[in-house]
């Protein structure tokens, strides 16, 4: 994986001092909170209901055991002993003291990590396929480009005050595991007929209160023009977005208001101009970065056999292990969705277990997935049993990847000042209702996503089943949505009808699931059945 050189290190170190100075000036009263807020937000420091939250970037979800141990250390020293993996391959700490934030950043800098541009109106952490470099279906590893974009979008002077946040995702496979088209700027790396590498470019996606799926602006952008193209997109948006209403300033709104054709036209015009300025990086720099992502030294002639004599282990293998490109290896997913837990939460001790496993069994590499799970990307099949045993010991062996209990839920009313309703308890009740392993397995792949308000942090627009907390005459109420997806056939979920109270929504989910089980055709997932039959039958089943 990528390692900082003296330049990267100097920049991150400088940011620590910058933020230390900004914090000092704020505490000394030389800055108003209004002035400090955007500065701290550009460094991932958010004020929540109970305390400050610090969001740390895990660029394109890749980290090593040293970094994971540092994250554990921070959880223990500065937080309450745990952290929370987010839906954008970051980690958040929820109980941070302002005066300690600069020290945390300094600790992170020692392991080549930072919180730069993880919130606020900035270009956020670049996300990528969490199976990058391990899956057989990718054109190339997308991470060198993601790292390139990370560097080039760090402290971009022209975009010091974008209208809103800007999120980039990069994939290189047919299958989209990164919800690419739900981002402001989605990229898919492709190879053209001449064998050249380039990008399909998808601007204008985003969730929030006005969801839009990104549209395709380019079928093939030559790879070394990507930074010029990105600057053109940002410039058009920076100049023409509204500035008078925070809810209408995301790029997706401008794309919608101008229309895709006109937005593309303006971008192409700006692009032709910017391309001539020569700000794209050269092949030599791409090669330098790509070398860090060379495949690890996989052993050859390994057996593909897995000893399945332990039935519990076999269940986990079937659900949580995915195919690897190298013979004898597998991708092992670690679920952070225990039935009674909070999705994405992990204790310092568990982080250390995972770090040890990565070091010992996965070429020292780990991934954070946008589904709030972790991944050991390169495990020998013969080591899977040992890995699983260690996970069982640490309470991390739930065999529910992509199943009905692998739920994404935002913090909701328990932690968030904007919430209408609680999310976590609803997720827990649904998980308990479907806890039976055989039942989960029979239901198959089903992605439930829950947000406590229209800001959609829990991705309800992209849920096969989405749940949205609303405020109905002062009481918590939940709307049910069906048919969303963040995969290569991205769709936006639709509302079924009137909302439910907390127990009612759990029952409604169960009725939808049972309806699917009753009418599915062989091999159909919930989403497939919904797409085949449409909303009406489900509506009837849900509302009776």
């Amino acid at each position, binding site marked *: 994986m990528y390692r900082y*050189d003296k*330049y*990267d290190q*100097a*920049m991150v170190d*400088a940011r620590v*001092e*910058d933020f230390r*100075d*900004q914090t000092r*000036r704020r505490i000394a009263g*030389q800055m108003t909170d209004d*002035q400090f807020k*955007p*500065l701290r937000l550009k460094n991932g420091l958010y004020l929540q209901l109970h305390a400050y939250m610090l969001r740390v970037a895990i660029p394109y979800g890749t980290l090593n055991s040293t970094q994971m141990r540092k994250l554990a250390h921070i959880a223990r020293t500065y937080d309450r002993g745990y952290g929370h993996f987010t839906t954008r391959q970051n980690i958040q700490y929820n109980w941070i003291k302002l005066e300690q934030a600069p020290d945390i950043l300094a600790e992170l800098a020692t392991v080549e990590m930072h919180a730069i541009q993880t919130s606020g*109106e900035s270009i956020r952490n670049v996300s990528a396929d969490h199976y990058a470099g391990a899956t057989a279906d990718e054109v190339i590893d997308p991470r060198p480009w993601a790292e390139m974009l990370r*560097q*080039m979008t*760090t*402290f*971009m*002077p*022209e*975009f*010091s*005050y*974008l*209208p809103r946040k800007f999120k980039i995702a990069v994939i290189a496979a047919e299958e989209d595991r990164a919800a690419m088209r739900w981002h402001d700027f989605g990229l898919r790396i492709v190879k053209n007929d001449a064998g050249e590498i380039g990008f399909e470019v998808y601007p204008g996606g985003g969730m929030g209160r006005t969801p839009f799926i990104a549209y395709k602006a380019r079928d093939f952008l030559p790879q070394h023009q990507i*930074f010029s193209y990105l600057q053109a997109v940002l*410039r058009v948006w*920076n*100049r023409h977005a509204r*500035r008078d209403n925070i809810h209408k300033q995301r790029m997706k709104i401008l794309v919608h208001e101008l229309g895709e054709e006109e937005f593309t036209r303006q971008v192409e015009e700006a692009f032709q*101009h910017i391309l001539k*300025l*020569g*700000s794209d*990086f*050269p092949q*030599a*720099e791409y090669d*330098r970065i790509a070398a860090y992502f060379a495949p690890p030294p996989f052993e050859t002639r390994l057996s593909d056999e897995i000893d399945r004599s332990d039935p519990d282990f076999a269940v986990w293998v079937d659900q949580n292990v995915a195919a690897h490109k190298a013979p004898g290896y597998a991708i092992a997913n670690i679920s952070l969705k225990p039935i009674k837990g909070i999705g994405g939460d992990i204790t310092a001790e568990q982080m250390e277990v995972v770090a040890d496993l990565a070091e010992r069994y996965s070429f020292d590499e780990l991934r954070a997935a946008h589904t709030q799970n972790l991944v050991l990307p390169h495990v020998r099949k013969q080591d899977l049993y040992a890995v699983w045993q260690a996970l069982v010991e640490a309470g991390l062996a739930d065999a529910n990847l992509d199943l009905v209990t692998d739920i994404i839920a935002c913090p909701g009313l328990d932690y968030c000042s904007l919430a209408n309703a609680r999310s976590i308890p609803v997720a827990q009740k649904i998980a308990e209702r479907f806890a039976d392993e055989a039942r989960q397995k029979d239901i198959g792949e089903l992605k439930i996503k829950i947000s406590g308000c229209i800001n959609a942090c829990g991705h309800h627009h992209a849920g096969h089943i989405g749940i949205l907390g609303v405020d109905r005459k002062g009481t918590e109420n939940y709307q049910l949505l069906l048919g969303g997806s963040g995969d290569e056939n991205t769709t936006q979920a639709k509302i079924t009808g009137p909302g439910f109270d907390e127990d009612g929504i759990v029952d409604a989910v169960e009725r939808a699931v049972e309806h699917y089980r009753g009418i599915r055709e062989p091999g159909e997932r919930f989403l497939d059945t919904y797409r085949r039959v449409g909303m009406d039958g489900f509506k009837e089943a849900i509302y009776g």
Partner: protein
Amino acid sequence: MAESGNPIPQAASEANYLRFREDSPADEPAVSLDSFFEQPNAVSVRIEAGDDPQRLIPHLSRVKLVEVDFPKFRDGRGFSTARILREAGYTGEIKATGDVLVDLVYFMRRCGFDSFAPDVAIDPAVLEACLNRYPHVYQHAADDAVPIWQLRHPELANG
């Protein structure tokens, strides 16, 4: 960024006027973009956040000062305005006015701003620290700072 240097002192009466140029300031008050087109002798023009700076490009040869206003620091349109003018070859003064935060001056310098007349005076010590904080830059901008990728490949310097 070493290139940013320190502001060149102005007259005491202009305590809020930080200037990084050696030529003498245009002494005419800036007029609005529309007035500028009506007044063939005007040399100072003021661009509001919502104005299109590209309209000025055909007339740059007579411009000595462009004021770019920041109505609130959250409004970042002025950054693009300065870039567009510099990319069009404009070498006169570009002055940032309005809600100019000290933490953003460094980035404004990189976009081509070379003077600042903020609503609230900037503490010179804080400014100096902010201007000299980052040892390197990751990308080209309107200044002549050399991006990190270029420093990493000195062999490409002449190619």
